[in-house]
């Protein structure tokens, strides 16, 4: 029969197992190997467990002392496992952190498209007016002579018709009564809106308009934005028109800009005024500026107080109501903002141009 272990020899054995385990896992580099090693020592049939089976043969006093050693060795092994696992995870993390990519390679994924610069300009303008409580109104682009001209105090055989060169559509069938045209301004939307609703009216009308003009600064089709504000007499004045335009120009192109109204004539407004703003290039300095030819100002549109005849044509009482209207080219404002010098650029659809306006 084997020699029964002494408490001393058992303690020695346990301590040696602890040392042996430390040596063993130092060489191990994966968690499963370490867990296997742990099982070989601490599992039910592990070496430490086997060694401790002899515990029962010791006297109670020795059993307690050896048991404490056993627990120490066990927790030592467990601590070694944890430490080793942490070290391993750390090594993996460190190896991962040594990874380097060339961040200057291009990004992956489909490129975004773009909204047309005029769409962007229009939306920005709409937003500025929407914040002031204006409603966006639209109307047909193929218009009747009545809405485009007569309702706006531009009767047939009147010289003011010559101010706008008009595209007409061929009649659909012989004897078709009215003259049909491509609207020359967005003003018919004014007429249609007032015919549809009682005052107050507070709209802006953006959209395509057409004039029989074709040169480096004119395109036969372009975009206008028109504003109309109508309320009872005393609620809206030409000073309000000026303030509104000033607010708009500053929001759209910069707080340092000024507005200048210059007397003019439009059949649908009285008084009428051309709208000039500080040159966006020299910011109003003028001298030596080629864009504004040294004047410090550039013309951006027309404006005025709605003519009583227009109110009459839409069934409003000109004694009761008063209002202002203004119009300007979205093309022109977009060109000024984005420094586009040829209006044709806006209609070519050149991808190399469009990409520049994300």
């Amino acid at each position, binding site marked *: 029969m084997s020699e029964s272990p002494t408490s001393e020899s058992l303690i020695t054995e346990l301590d040696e197992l602890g040392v042996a385990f430390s040596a063993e896992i130092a060489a191990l580099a994966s968690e499963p190997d370490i867990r296997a090693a742990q099982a070989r020592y601490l599992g039910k049939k592990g070496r430490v467990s086997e060694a401790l089976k002899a515990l029962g043969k010791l006297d109670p006093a020795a059993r307690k002392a050896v048991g404490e050693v056993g627990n120490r060795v066990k927790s030592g092994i467990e601590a070694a496992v944890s430490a080793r696992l942490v070290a391993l995870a750390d090594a993996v993390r460190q190896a991962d952190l040594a990874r380097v990519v060339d961040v200057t390679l291009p990004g992956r994924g*489909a490129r975004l498209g773009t909204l047309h610069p005029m769409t962007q300009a229009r939306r920005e303008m709409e937003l500025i007016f929407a914040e002031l409580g204006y409603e966006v109104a639209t109307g047909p682009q193929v218009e009747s002579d009545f809405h485009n001209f007569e309702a706006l105090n531009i009767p047939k055989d009147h010289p003011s018709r010559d101010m706008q060169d008009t595209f007409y559509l061929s009649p659909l069938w012989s004897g078709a009564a009215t003259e049909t045209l491509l609207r020359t301004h967005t003003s018919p939307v004014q007429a249609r809106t007032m015919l549809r609703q009682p005052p107050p009216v507070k709209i802006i009308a953006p959209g395509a308009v057409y004039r029989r003009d074709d040169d480096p600064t004119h395109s036969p089709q372009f975009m206008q934005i028109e504003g109309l504000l109508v309320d009872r007499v005393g609620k809206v004045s030409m000073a309000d028109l000026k303030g509104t335009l000033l607010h708009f120009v500053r929001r759209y192109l910069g707080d340092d800009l000024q507005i200048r109204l210059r007397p003019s004539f439009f059949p649908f407004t009285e008084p009428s005024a051309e709208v000039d703003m500080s040159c966006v290039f020299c910011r109003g300095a003028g001298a030596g500026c080629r864009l504004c030819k040294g004047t410090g100002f550039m013309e951006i549109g027309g404006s005025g107080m709605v003519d009583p005849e227009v109110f009459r044509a839409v069934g409003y009482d000109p004694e009761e109501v008063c209002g202002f209207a203004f119009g300007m080219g979205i093309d022109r404002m977009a060109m000024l903002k984005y420094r586009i010098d040829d209006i044709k650029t806006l209609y070519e659809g050149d991808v190399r141009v469009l990409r520049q306006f994300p």
Partner: protein
Amino acid sequence: MKISMRWLAEWVAVPDADQTARALTERGLEVEGIERRGDNLAGVVVAAVRARQPVAGSDHLTLVEIFDGVSVHQVVCGAPNVPAPGGRVAWARPGTTLPGGLSIGVRELRGVRSAGMLCSEQELGLGDSHDGIIVLEADAEAGREIASELMLRDVVLEVNVTPNRGDCLSHLGIAREASAAFSLPLTLPRVDFAALLGGAGAGAAAAITPPVAIDDVVGCPRYQARVIDGVRVGPSPLWLRRRLEAVGVRPISNLVDVTNYVMFDRGQPLHAFDHARVAGGAIAVRRARAGETLVTLDGVTRQLETGDLLICDAERPIALAGVMGGKDSEVSEGTTRVLLESACFEPRAVRVPAKRLGLHSEASQRFELGVDVAGVDASSQRACALLVEVAGGRVAGQGSDLWPRPLEPLMIPLRRARLHAVLGLDVAAPEVRRLLGGIELGEAGGGAAGADGEVLRFQIPTFRTDLTREVDLIEEVARLCGLDKLPATLPSVSRAPARSGDRVAERARELLAAAGLHEILSYSFVAPAALAARGFADDDRRARPRRVANPLRLEQSAMRTAILPGLAAALAHNQAQRVHDVRLFEVGPLFLPRAQGADDPELCDEPWVAGGLLAGERDGWLRSGGPLDFFDARGVVEALVHGLTGHAPTLAATSVVPWLHPGVAATVSVLGRELGVVGEVHPRVRDALGLTGVVFAFELGLDPLRSAPPAQLTRPGRFPGSSRDVSCFIGVDIPAARVQSVLAAAGGALLAEVRLLEDYREAGKVPAGQKSMLWTLTYRSPERTLTDVEVDAAHAGVVAALASELSATLR
């Protein structure tokens, strides 16, 4: 309207051109340009000939010794008319650049040194004469600038006169504004008409009083006819020619030049008839009768229309009133007795025939904008005085002046409260009086306070035909006090906006840009051929686009009934620039003709569509992404429709869209509405539109989506799903959508998701006529976690259905 500063200075002592221009512009008479005449002749001076001798060895060159007021120079001249010593010539100094661009220097001709050049009219841009050099008056001062000597120095303002200010189409009209602007008096040239008539003395012509009859007082409120006898036709004096040249009119003869001069001076168009050719020396103003004709000054036989206003003599029409005179009665070289017409015609009576006949002229323009009926006589008198001065005539009596219904003075009340309300600026009554008084609006009746508050009443001068209403006076006050005086305020009007633009179109733009397409804007009118190339069924109204009656060019003459042509033109532009990977979209209206019985049948239906065009390769990463195909276009369409409606579109193959490839085209529907089509552009259409390579396109109507309901929440399942794959061979003609619907039907309520992972059809790797498909099916219950047994049972049903309904072979 061109305004000569020299001319203007006769009316009012204006400051320099720049100040005048600024003042006019501020008052609504925009000066668009300032031309400094004579500046281009700097360096050309009067020179006195000292001596002349032929150049040895030449048969035509003359060596001329000249004196320029300071020193003596030698110049060789090839002209035959070098004057004898003492004569005066125009000499261009060395260093001068002539109007034609010729640089003058010092040269050697035949070994003789020649400094500068003696100039002809043509070389100085003064006329066509190149017969010889200019020979000036013998008393011309040597050394004086030729521009001054020839009265060429002037500054001309190009004034944009708006259609309401016909009164400013004259130097008098502009002078009135300048006089008010600078608070300077107007110098009214006095014509001593009594002196012109010569009293009863021997110099007086026998009085001739042309009989005048006006049939239509509305068309012709006033007609004045005077006779000037004994005129001699010839060129006008230099000063008169220069005046006309300054305002852009070619001098013709003294008679015609005087009528033009007075028109530009006072705004009153005049007409000079040859009295000998006016039958009976009588004038009748009447409307044309059916079938009448008139040969106008330009020699063209004009067909008159009933209602055209005519000037007739005792026998026949001799002029189209205010538009153009007749050839038979015009003044010519042999004219000795002039019948001078000064009249007022109603704007429309002039405009209608002028427009119809394309005969707009300086005269018709003035009548169209309204002439001063009270100024008719003064203009006539001025013309008489000038004819006497420059054509040697004598005025044959007072003539006739028919003005059946003289004007009542027009009074307009102006309420100060209204003025304040419209302008947002309170202008005190004395200031209003001062401002309006400056432009000859006198206060009549004084300020009265009534129910409307303070009311001022003003009498309107006859030349201001544009002032008829209170608001016109308000405009005058605003204009005269300066719009810079207005404060800048914001209105207090509030109205809750009921709409905010076209949300569907805006969202469509955003979605398409997010899908990688670039937005373009194209013209609404396109080439008819481009629309035809797109192809429509004969009974489709899109096959008959509305046509522009007066297009700038044929390629812009048809209102688009499809969005494709504009996109195709942009693609062609890019391809021409060698940009081949192009993805474009446009959102905008089409213009579809309405049926004859529709509301507003002359207008168009303007449905809004979103169209797109894709060509080239898709984006790859560090390598080509491969050529685009149908599914790239389909992906864009899916993103667009899903983004707009929350629902995936249904695509169905179609082979009948004329502009799309019959095998690569689909209709696109959502929520039971067909929106449009997507597919590969038909090779024939591609060629016709000038496009290269394979091109994919779509065109979807946006209007059906305006009423799309908002998305409604479906709560995500809380229990895990279970997936099963099924792989099979299946007939190559069976569309994926058909397989999917069989799978969905067979899977029942537990089948939550069906995804296609593979569609493989390479010949040799699959049985003939078959394709290989791999689907992943996910089963899920909203109430519990499914057991494997349940899932297997459901999946077995699906697999069985594949085999039984679609003859699929499981792999």
